[in-house]
């Protein structure tokens, strides 16, 4: 019976140990402005991303453990005559150098999409809509974010003649941070 009085404190201690340094962990939002992306003549448009310019990223980079959430936001405008499936590809390069979809797909991985957009329409994508379009692209993006934080994102569509814009684009990431 007397041993039972240690039960709650022991369980509390086990909880504290199991959660590690949970009191100094958290989920922090970082964002990077992608600006305006303009894809013409069935080509690609790329934006160089340097997360080291983002204050909260630099502050927490050493203790970054995971990506809790991620999204690409902006107003997507289909300026072409065909319905399109917009994709964003990740390439491990500091500044955009590729000019064709084939080159991007050969040298990178799809990070986001496809996002369907009918001809002649525009849509401002929400955080909820965008977050579900990452899927398997989360892992390579996490690797980049846990690495040097420098990479390039390309917007493209894989088939047909197309032209589109992404206005006021933003890369949103919620990073999981915990003291080591």
């Amino acid at each position, binding site marked *: 019976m007397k041993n039972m009085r240690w039960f709650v404190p022991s369980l509390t201690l086990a909880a504290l140990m199991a959660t590690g340094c949970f009191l100094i962990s958290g989920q922090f939002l970082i*964002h990077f402005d992608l600006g305006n992306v303009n894809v013409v003549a069935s080509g690609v448009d790329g934006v160089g991303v340097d997360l080291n310019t983002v204050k909260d990223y630099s502050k927490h980079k050493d203790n970054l453990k995971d990506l809790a959430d991620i999204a690409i936001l902006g107003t997507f405008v289909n300026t072409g005559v065909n319905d399109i499936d917009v994709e964003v590809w990740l390439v491990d390069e500091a500044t955009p150098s590729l000019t064709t979809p084939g080159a991007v797909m050969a040298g990178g991985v799809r990070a986001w999409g496809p996002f369907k957009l009918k001809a002649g329409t525009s849509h401002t994508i929400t955080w909820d809509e965008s977050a579900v379009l990452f899927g398997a692209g989360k892992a390579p993006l996490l690797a980049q974010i846990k690495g040097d934080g420098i990479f390039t994102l390309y917007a493209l569509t894989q088939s047909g003649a197309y032209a589109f814009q992404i206005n006021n684009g933003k890369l949103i990431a919620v990073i999981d941070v915990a003291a080591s």
Partner: protein
Amino acid sequence: MKRTVLVLCVALSLIATVAGAATVGIGAFGGVGIPIIQDDTGRGTMFGVRAPVSLIPLVTVEPYFLSSNGSSKDQDLGGVTITRSGIDVTGFGATAMLTMGGPVSFYPFAGIGSHKLKRDGIEETRTAYSFGIGIGISPVPKFTLHIRGEIDAAVKDQTSRKWAAATVGLSYSLLKFPPTP
């Protein structure tokens, strides 16, 4: 992990039951969970049921089921407001409380459970740990009003999502073992 938590919850309840005279109750609770350092989810409203198994006068083990609906979170990015749906949580587990007895009692508690976190783009089950302190007020026999403050941590690898929660609940003592004549 989910199975381990379930087995642990049952074991905790059995410890209290077989260790001596016990009471078994049923109760419900509701409250709010405030995210701690979570930039992507808002305050949650929670409710659930509990089944306190008391080993009088010291230890009460309380299996629980809870459901929480997280509210949306707005973030302002340079004049543009973006919104993310809150995280909904459902889960079960068991809480162990160091109860002192009496019409008014303060008790520390700690718990373990399996909680599912869900929203668009996220669905994962985590082991959850909780600890806190509660006040039990029993104005009439068999009924107890519980007011609790606690920290809940849903753990994934080296990180966790945490909430500071405040709940109010009411429990009713159903059975006593062995029965009193």
